């Protein structure tokens, strides 16, 4: 079996095994797995309203996945997407309601503000790693909580003790009436176009530019990159910042599209951690991220239909997602099994 085929088979096997184990869990808990998966399917594709909301759910997943995938490609693990997303969310919401500008300037400005906020938050992680040798996983976990508490405190003071900011102005919203009409009043918004645009941006940046080549080179082998005259430190900081900008944009989707404000949160949105799953499933390629985000976004949204239609708690789907990540992480064993299976067949 070729390497390429195995690379595609590992996630596919993981998804299938994840769904199978999910079915077993449902059976053991006394639920009907067929009823459960039918409810899940209908929750995703049942009608135009569901499809609209599913696409809306996929949007931040694409951007969070890009953030993690971009970092992975440059040899970094960005587990801090949660914090960068919250920063971007707040920045976009604030620019969205506090400034009055014509739509053609206002909307891009709010989106850029989110990217800058997310980028700056990730810049800290890159700087700490490049200059002070602090491992990015630990510093970004710590900065996740720091971001959670800081954004909550800022939202509280912006809203005079309330729990959410004002609604973003019509000139900064990502919502579009024609999209809502098309999908039976779902909360689908224009963000999906930005997300897909960013998929192309990441592909172009990594595959077609000198800077992208340098970033990847540093990720592959720091010493070789250094020897070839590239600045490892500069590239680490840049890679982390770009990754954080994708994460910030994911926050903008929530602020300007789905929620139209920023609100105080008791915990993380989960989008950032799911972004790790999306990137892994998509083998850290831009196109793969679209597939991973489509799968996990659909599952997450479709799950909401499971309690009503089948009486199964929606956490069932989170269990399945966690299992899929677990299996993808254990790819070494799946690879081993697949290659043994493949060589046996060839032998015959």
């Amino acid at each position, binding site marked *: 079996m070729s390497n390429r085929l195995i690379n595609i088979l590992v996630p596919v096997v993981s998804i299938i095994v994840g769904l199978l184990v999910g079915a077993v869990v449902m059976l053991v808990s006394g639920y009907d797995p067929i009823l459960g998966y039918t409810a899940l399917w209908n929750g995703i594709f049942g009608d135009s309203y569901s499809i609209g909301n599913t696409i809306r759910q996929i949007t931040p997943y694409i951007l969070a996945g890009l953030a993690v995938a971009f970092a992975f490609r440059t040899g970094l693990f960005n587990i801090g997407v949660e914090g960068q997303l919250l920063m971007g969310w707040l920045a976009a919401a604030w620019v969205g309601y506090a400034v009055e500008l014509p739509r053609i300037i206002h909307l891009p400005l709010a989106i850029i503000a989110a990217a800058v906020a997310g980028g700056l938050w990730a810049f800290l992680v890159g700087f700490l790693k490049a200059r002070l040798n602090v491992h990015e996983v630990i510093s970004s976990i710590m900065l996740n909580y720091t971001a959670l508490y800081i954004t909550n405190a800022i939202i509280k003071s912006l809203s005079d003790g309330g729990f959410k900011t004002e609604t973003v102005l019509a000139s900064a919203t990502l919502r579009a009436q024609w999209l809502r009409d098309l999908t039976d009043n779902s909360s689908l918004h224009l963000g999906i176009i930005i997300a897909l645009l960013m998929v192309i941006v990441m592909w172009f940046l990594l595959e077609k530019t000198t800077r992208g080549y340098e970033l990847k080179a540093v990720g592959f082998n720091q010493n070789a990159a250094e020897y070839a005259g590239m600045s490892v430190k500069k590239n680490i900081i840049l890679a982390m910042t770009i990754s954080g900008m994708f994460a910030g944009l994911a926050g903008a989707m929530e602020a300007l599209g789905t929620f139209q404000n920023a609100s105080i949160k008791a915990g993380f949105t989960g989008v950032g951690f799911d972004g790790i799953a999306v990137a892994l499933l998509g083998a850290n390629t831009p196109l793969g991220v679209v597939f991973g985000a489509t799968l996990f976004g659909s599952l997450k949204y479709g799950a909401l239909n499971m309690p009503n239609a089948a009486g199964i*708690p929606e*956490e069932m789907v989170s269990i399945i997602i966690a299992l899929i990540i677990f299996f993808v992480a254990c790819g070494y064993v799946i690879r081993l099994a697949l290659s043994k299976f493949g060589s046996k067949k060839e032998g015959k």
Partner: protein
Amino acid sequence: MSALEILYFIIPSAILYATPLIFTAIGGVFSERAGVVNIGLEGIMVVGAFTGIYVNLEYGPSMGASVIWLAILAALVAGAVFSILLAVAAVSFRADQTVTGVALNMLGGAVTIFLVKLIYQKGQTDIISNPIRRFSMDGIEIWGINWFPLANIPFFGPLLFQNVYSTSILAFAVAIGAWLIIYKTPFGLRLRAVGEHPMAADTMGVNVAKMRYIAVLISGALGGIGGAVYAQTITLDFSASTIAGQGFMAIAALIFGKWNPLGALGAALFFGVAQTLSIAGNQIPVIQDIPAVYLQILPYVLTILALAGFIGKATAPKASGVPYIKGKR
């Protein structure tokens, strides 16, 4: 409030908040010292908290106050069993440890809420009627003499021994025990060797995989205890928001404590003070002028500063996070 009253208020409360962190952080010390990064401590604590509350609700009516120990024991087992997933993935399957840890966190949160809904048909459990209670160490009377009347010691009595939880005493004992095991026993030496230079340890006949399995299981067991203690002293029920970052704060404590059990103990106590002040600071003069957000982010910021070398250099065990593959140089 006078300065003394403030101290009598802050210190017992800080120990209360620090106790679950101490257990979990020391669990983390074991696994990281053996070379396995355990990002999954949060998920393990969630599993421990759920198990503790479930056992307490189930057997509390028949067992009374002593049910807390059964609950903690059950959480210990549940945490260890749950951590087998990490051990198998990280040690045997050479999986990325951070990714596996993230999966463990997701799985722990999802499975427990799934079970709560399955068992109780609602999103959270009832409040337990047998929480872990405070007691005063008034001493034991043997032969007509009162031995160890620690609560009567001036100043330190009210500060440390009048409002004490048995689990806090256990946490201190575990910290000291862990220090003795890691630094003073052959087992501890092997554990550290496996985390610093697994190939050298392997050459000397230490079974790297076995050591790492044991270390991860210990971290799971202690993380489970941490979760059960937190749920039975602070939240008293179980819901999706019961464990909200305590596992990650325990990771912060073990790093701030420089991968040393006693350091982790000190860091956890310090974070306990910060948590107390951020929750109850509005009752204390001076502190009430500081916005709570500064106290909330303090543990995390300090950890970054410690790693950056501003507060003494914290260096991780060398082979931490790297799967060991025999014969690979």
